[in-house]
């Protein structure tokens, strides 16, 4: 049951467009003590049906830029093969640490975005006042 609950939370965050995959992996390793590789594989599996459905809908609504999407998909697949090959050779405890560092970088980037947004809001507020 806990797995379904974790899936729901990750799904909500994905639906909000904030990186549900990282939350899914985190919840699996922290709350259920799932091994890092297994948690990552679960997220990969999680993404397959979602992305197929989304792509069919997006293609029908003509939201996909194929000229950009296809070359990136191809070079990305090459990158993914290299990345996955490395990941499966690394010890679980180390992979977990690298994942922690990766999350830290994402958090710093989010803080930067929030500060940028805050400054922009202040500026528009000031402009409105001076009017």
């Amino acid at each position, binding site marked *: 049951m806990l797995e379904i609950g974790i899936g729901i939370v990750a799904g909500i965050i994905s639906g909000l467009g904030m990186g549900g995959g990282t939350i899914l992996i985190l919840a699996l390793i922290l709350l259920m003590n799932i091994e890092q*590789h297994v948690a990552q594989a679960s997220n990969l599996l999680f993404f*397959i049906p979602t992305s197929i459905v989304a792509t069919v809908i997006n293609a029908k609504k003509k*939201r996909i830029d194929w000229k950009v999407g296809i070359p990136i998909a191809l070079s990305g697949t090459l990158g993914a093969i290299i990345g996955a090959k490395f990941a499966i050779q690394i010890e679980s405890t180390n992979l977990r*640490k690298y994942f922690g560092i990766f999350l830290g970088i994402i958090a710093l980037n989010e803080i930067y975005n929030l500060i940028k947004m805050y400054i922009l809001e202040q500026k528009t507020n000031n402009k409105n006042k001076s009017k």
Partner: protein
Amino acid sequence: MMTKKVIIGIMSGLISGFFGAGGGMILVPAYMYILKMPDKKARATSVFSIMPMVLASTLFYVQKSYLDLQLGIKCIIGGIIGGIIGTKLLERFSIKTLKIMFTLFLIYASIKLII
């Protein structure tokens, strides 16, 4: 232009394959700010681009028996329900507070995993 695309692709693929997540976090901003795509198009195109990366990565994890099918399917069931709720919430609420909460949680988790 092509070199830019290839570099963006390889970077997001490396992250996607290595961490089993996060490809979109690289691709969406890259599409928006480097390739100047509008928001909706960037998100839709990134989901399409990541699909083959995820399929290729999955094969490697399966090969080493890292895939727990039962666990994965349970997560997918929850994910479908959550996805619908999330999309509906997005139409109603500002996500700023959620973003701050999400960021705080990431900082906590990051420290916990590194130490």
